[in-house]
């Protein structure tokens, strides 16, 4: 297998945890709330989902448990920032750190255990192609994540629900004036975001890397948040960013194996650098940037 085939085959799976978490965060931020606790939410869901699979509960239940865990944690955060109007940055960090601690506690007696992941589903014919064939051999969650990306894009852009969520994030006062309940809508958006972070965490610990080790999310929650910002709150760009990041992080490893004469520290920083530069370039039009950014992001709302 060529290095290129290796990168193509692995990109989507590497991108999926980032993509799922970033899509959830995208919806939450579109409604005007910044949730910095993503890393912790993913870790907590990852720990609980791993335990479910390890105890024989199966992957479906594991993903459900992960989603619920993410949602509950996000609702705690929502209560703090929406009902009690706490500072979003501080509350997000606090919930994130709390959930990281809880994940370590929950996973304590499961440290360094392994499970079996999910089988790959193939697209007939296409998966037999040379080099790019691997692209069409993915587990079911990857396929669902692709569908989900499309669904969220359509939802935000072309449906009434999406319009309302965006209006609430753009100008909550105006949205309130025409009869949209801002606070409940933000609750719902945060719950959805938590759910997606939970699914992302469950994917990380039960499919992508089917083992549990404290700290295994290793910064992916933060990358997801960065992807939303650098993707200027647009589904397509967030998807592009996640894939780019996934591909480059594999390219870094492949480059070392084939013996590219570059220092590995430089290669290791490539995914971050290139993703930022590319997303920065395609979002560099300042007028459009202002048009796309969420006007009320991070501001508390009072009736």
């Amino acid at each position, binding site marked *: 297998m060529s290095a290129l085939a290796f990168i193509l085959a692995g990109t989507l799976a590497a991108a999926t945890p980032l993509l799922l978490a970033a899509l959830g965060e995208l919806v939450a931020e579109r409604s005007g709330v910044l949730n910095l606790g993503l890393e912790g939410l993913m870790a907590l869901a990852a720990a609980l989902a791993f335990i479910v699979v390890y105890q024989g509960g199966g992957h479906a239940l594991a993903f459900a448990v992960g989603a619920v865990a993410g949602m509950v944690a996000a609702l705690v955060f929502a209560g703090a920032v929406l009902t009690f109007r706490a500072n979003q940055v501080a509350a997000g960090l606090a919930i994130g750190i709390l959930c990281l601690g809880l994940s370590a506690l929950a996973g304590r007696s499961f440290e360094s255990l392994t499970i079996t992941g999910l089988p790959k589903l193939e697209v007939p014919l296409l998966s037999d192609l040379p080099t790019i064939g691997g692209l069409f051999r993915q587990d079911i969650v990857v396929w669902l994540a692709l569908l989900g990306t499309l669904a969220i894009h359509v939802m935000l852009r072309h449906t009434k629900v999406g319009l309302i969520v965006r209006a609430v994030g753009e100008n909550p006062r105006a949205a309130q004036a025409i009869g949209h309940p801002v606070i409940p809508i933000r609750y719902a958006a945060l719950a959805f975001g938590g759910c997606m972070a939970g699914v992302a965490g469950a994917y990380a610990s039960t499919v992508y890397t089917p083992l549990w*080790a404290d700290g*295994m999310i290793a910064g992916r929650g933060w990358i997801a948040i960065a992807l939303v910002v650098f993707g200027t709150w647009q589904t397509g760009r967030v998807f592009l960013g996640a894939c780019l990041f996934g591909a480059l992080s594999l390219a870094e490893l492949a480059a070392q194996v084939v013996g590219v004469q570059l220092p590995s520290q430089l290669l290791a920083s490539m995914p971050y650098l290139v993703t930022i530069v590319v997303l920065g370039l395609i979002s560099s039009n300042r007028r459009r940037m202002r048009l796309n950014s969420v006007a009320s992001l991070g501001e508390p709302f009072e009736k």
Partner: protein
Amino acid sequence: MNTSRRRFLSSSLAAGAGLSLLPRGALAQDTLPMALITPSPVADVGWSHTLLQGAQAAAEAVGGSVSMLENIPEGPDADRIMQKAVAEGARFLIAGSFGYQNGALQIARRYPDVSVLHASGYEVAPNFSPFAARYFQGTYLMGMAAASLSKTGKLGSVSAFAIPELITSVNAFALGARAVNPDAEVSVVWVNSWFDPAKEQEAARALISQGIDVIFSNAQDTPSVISLCEEQGAYAFNLNSSMKSYAPSKYLGVVGTDWSPFFTAQAQAHLDGSFQGASHWLGMEDGVVFVADWNPDIPADAKTRIDETQARIADGSFSPFAGPLIRADGSQAVAEGGNLADDAILAMDWHVQGVVTPLPQ
């Protein structure tokens, strides 16, 4: 007062060395409270696990007790936690990571009656000793086994950071492999992270995709690489403690560490009042480094050769870094008949011939 208590201890313990058969109550007032601090949580496998086993064996042997401080990030928090352990009575501290060096050294200076062992550091004080394992003795043997099993002659390593200790292990792995198959090549992926299981697995996948069929999981505390190799059909081995259960058919073996003899001797020295700060670099000759759980696929003649080499390493008649030793750039590091000195091994920042990946500078 403390010294007299220690003298009393030493006399009573010297009289009954190995009196672990005595009921614990008889030794109750003789206990040596020990504290072990590690950066990762203690699992069933890995670095922290082997340290804890060693500390517990030492405690058992001298009639002490161990309080375990696990999952403590290196930094000011660790300093505070070590302080607290000593304030609460710990008199023998094992600091299980390089990053604890400054905090642990401060404790040693402030409390002269506390003895400190510190993993992989370089500072020495009268009551402060760094310790490390000569893993390279074992990885050399693993290289021999790997080359005897590899169909492609291409071997790989997933390594954390390009620091001398890890480079040394990779170099010895390559030298061992080339002792069996002179054309064997070793590719290394430096993941530039101590801990990212997902990245470690992808690195192993990248190696396997290039035809590499034996992988050395260098300094990974989780079975990330080992379990992936089992799934993908590549042989794999790791350091510290056996992960055979994660790869029942493809586990090449383990370069293990057993710290109990060293910790026991040091704890005993502390009780005797004869603890002396010194740098301890321990290998097979000290009973600290061992190899085990060999894969039954290894051909019998190769296994015989490995056993012979192992015996020669253990009795000191052979070093993996014996001359002639050629660097990856073609220059000669050691001439025929010579041996690379310990200082040079400890500071190794070059690859030997046979390692094909360039070294990060």
